[in-house]
């Protein structure tokens, strides 16, 4: 079959010694930064962008992808042992995982999440192999209006699904769209928002913006000393889950894989949203929901499976449509652009080595993670003993020197500084940097497509709703938004009546 032949080619790419090395490097770095609180996958990928510049395209993406899904494995360890989520998606794992650890079942919690993550990752890879090529074929027919709709819907969903308030996330995305305006207008050639600065005529470069927001911003934020201690660490105990554990989590792992895969394909769906949703589902499905929060193994297995599945399937929109679906994928999009590869529907046919190589590397990476994860838990926990101040010093140095190395440009170093300050202030006032970076990447695509759409339609804005695909997309987005706004209101009312109900019941007693 065609797919199998392609997949075999992909494994041939992934199994070259260089790529094999970078899969291992990627997932190991991912695990390390997943363990370390404060330095998430976004910051790490931003910091490593200059280094990927010198690599082959497929190799670069293979390594960055490894960091992304590796971080989820690593984040689990500290969540379970220390109730210290190394990255956001592991926050729910800390609830039941830490309780399990306190009951002396840390090993089982770590074991089941490693197994769940592995299965979730594989299911997502299979789904990706089946879905991505037909999706790309379909997307080849997309015109400018479809791209405007896709990008707009994507941004809207990302801001909507974000963990912070909706209006603040929208502001963050709009700031990103604004920053993308700086420089020469792509069609008429007029300089815009350059404030008379010569270097700004070419626009802001993606690398210093991302490195400033995520790298320097993060470090400045951590300077204030917000990190836990590794002292009250739990004993790991028996690592292999018992047969009973497996039996009880099999449902959670199955649901987590499928749900995580589906949510990952949606914009904004990778990571946090999928693990939160899975936790909610498991609690609802469970016959003993009261066990959740007191060490229910399903509460660890489900979310961990889901976040790994979603971090894999989140690559689908990037590699088939050329649209990154969250902040981390926006960084990987940036890495591809640095390589001179513009992701889009023709990526699979034009650069099969990237697409199939990355897919094959994900299978490999998940195997490596499963093998590395459990025996090395103790080593990874030791990492927390490295003082955060040492990490900060090393990180600023590599950021400042690294950003220079991309374009050999001193001005970019000042851009990093400016965006470091912005990233710090944004965190302080509760603006997420994720939507900003995503919008910054999508901005030029949106503007060019928007203006082309207007030219095609001879100035009729109805073009966005009359074309079937863009119309459907915008309609669906509207429907989802309405449904969730009203759904929330109904849910709140139902909760209120339920509370009233229990109140009257207790009163009656």
């Amino acid at each position, binding site marked *: 079959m065609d797919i199998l032949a392609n997949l075999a080619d992909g494994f041939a790419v992934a199994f070259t010694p260089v790529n094999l090395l970078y899969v291992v490097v990627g997932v190991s770095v991912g695990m390390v930064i997943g363990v370390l609180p404060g330095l998430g996958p976004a910051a790490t990928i931003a910091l490593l962008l200059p280094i990927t510049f010198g690599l082959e395209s497929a190799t670069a993406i293979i390594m960055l992808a490894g960091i992304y899904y590796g971080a989820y494995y690593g984040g689990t360890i500290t969540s379970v042992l220390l109730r210290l989520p190394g990255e956001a998606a592991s926050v729910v794992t800390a609830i039941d995982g830490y309780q399990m650890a306190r009951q002396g079942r840390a090993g089982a919690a770590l074991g089941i999440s490693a197994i769940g993550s592995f299965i979730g990752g594989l299911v997502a890879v299979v789904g990706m192999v089946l879905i991505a090529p037909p999706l790309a074929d379909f997307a080849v027919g997309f015109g400018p209006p479809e791209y405007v709709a896709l990008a707009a819907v994507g941004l809207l969903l990302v801001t909507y699904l974000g963990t912070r308030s909706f209006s*603040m996330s929208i*502001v963050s995305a709009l700031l990103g769209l604004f920053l993308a*305006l700086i420089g020469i207008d792509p069609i008429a050639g007029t300089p815009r928002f350059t404030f008379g600065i010569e270097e700004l005529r070419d626009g802001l470069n993606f690398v210093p913006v991302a490195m400033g927001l995520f790298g320097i911003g993060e470090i*400045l934020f951590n300077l204030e000393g917000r990190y836990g201690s590794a002292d009250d660490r739990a004993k790991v105990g028996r690592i292999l889950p018992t047969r009973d554990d497996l039996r009880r989590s099999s449902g959670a792992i199955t649901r987590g894989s499928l749900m995580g895969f589906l949510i990952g394909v949606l914009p904004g769906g990778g990571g946090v949203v999928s693990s939160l949703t899975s936790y909610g589902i498991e609690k609802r499905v469970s016959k003993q929901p009261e066990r959740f929060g007191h060490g229910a193994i399903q509460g660890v297995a489900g979310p961990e499976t889901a976040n790994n599945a979603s971090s894999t399937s989140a690559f689908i929109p990037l590699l088939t449509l050329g649209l990154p679906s969250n902040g981390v994928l926006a960084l990987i999009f940036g890495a591809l652009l640095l390589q001179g590869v513009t992701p889009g529907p023709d990526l699979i046919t034009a650069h099969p080595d990237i697409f199939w190589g990355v897919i094959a590397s994900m299978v490999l990476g998940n195997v490596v993670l499963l093998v590395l994860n459990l025996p090395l838990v103790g080593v990874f926990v030791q990492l927390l003993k490295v*003082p955060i101040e040492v990490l*900060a010093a090393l990180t600023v140095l590599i950021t400042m020197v690294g950003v220079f190395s991309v374009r050999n440009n001193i001005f970019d170093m000042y851009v990093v500084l400016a965006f470091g300050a912005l990233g710090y202030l944004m965190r302080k006032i*509760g603006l997420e940097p994720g939507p900003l970076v995503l919008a910054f990447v999508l901005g030029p695509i949106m503007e060019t497509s*928007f203006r082309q759409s207007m*030219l095609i339609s001879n100035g009729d804005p109805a073009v966005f709703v009359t074309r079937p695909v863009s119309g459907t997309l915008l309609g669906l987005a509207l429907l989802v938004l309405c449904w969730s706004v009203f759904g929330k209101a109904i849910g709140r009312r139902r909760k209120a009546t339920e509370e009233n109900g229990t109140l009257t019941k207790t009163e009656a007693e």
Partner: protein
Amino acid sequence: MAEHTGTTRPQWTKNRFAGLIFLLAGLAVILHAFALSIGSWQEPGPGMWPLVIGVALVLASVAVLSQRIDAAEGEEFTPRSLLAVPAMLSLYVFVWAFSLLGSTVPGFLLALFWLKVLGRRSWPISIVVSVVATAVFYVLFVLALGVPFPDDVLLGGR
């Protein structure tokens, strides 16, 4: 917590303040968009898309101003937040020194400042880590990746 009564107001003001800045920024974008020429629906000019963003920014900032954002959204400024000022200054000085002196001396001093002054590590650790880090990055970027750093005051030009 003693300062509990005080925390609600600054939080409120901070969000209002942020909303106000976004509002002004949105208005500035709109003004600039008009200066760039909007064009028509048939032929959008360079100002059309900025106008769309400016209007959306104004609308979103009005939404931010009109609601009280949950206190857990942002982070309070604490006395330790002042550390961000010397930290940023050190980076600024580093960029300037880097362009004149290359990576080795400024890199060593930057790492030393972050470890010793900002991080309060001991002298031996600070010096050893700074030397090693500077050397490793020099080898990685200049020798391995071949990045043309500015001429180095210690090692000279290449």
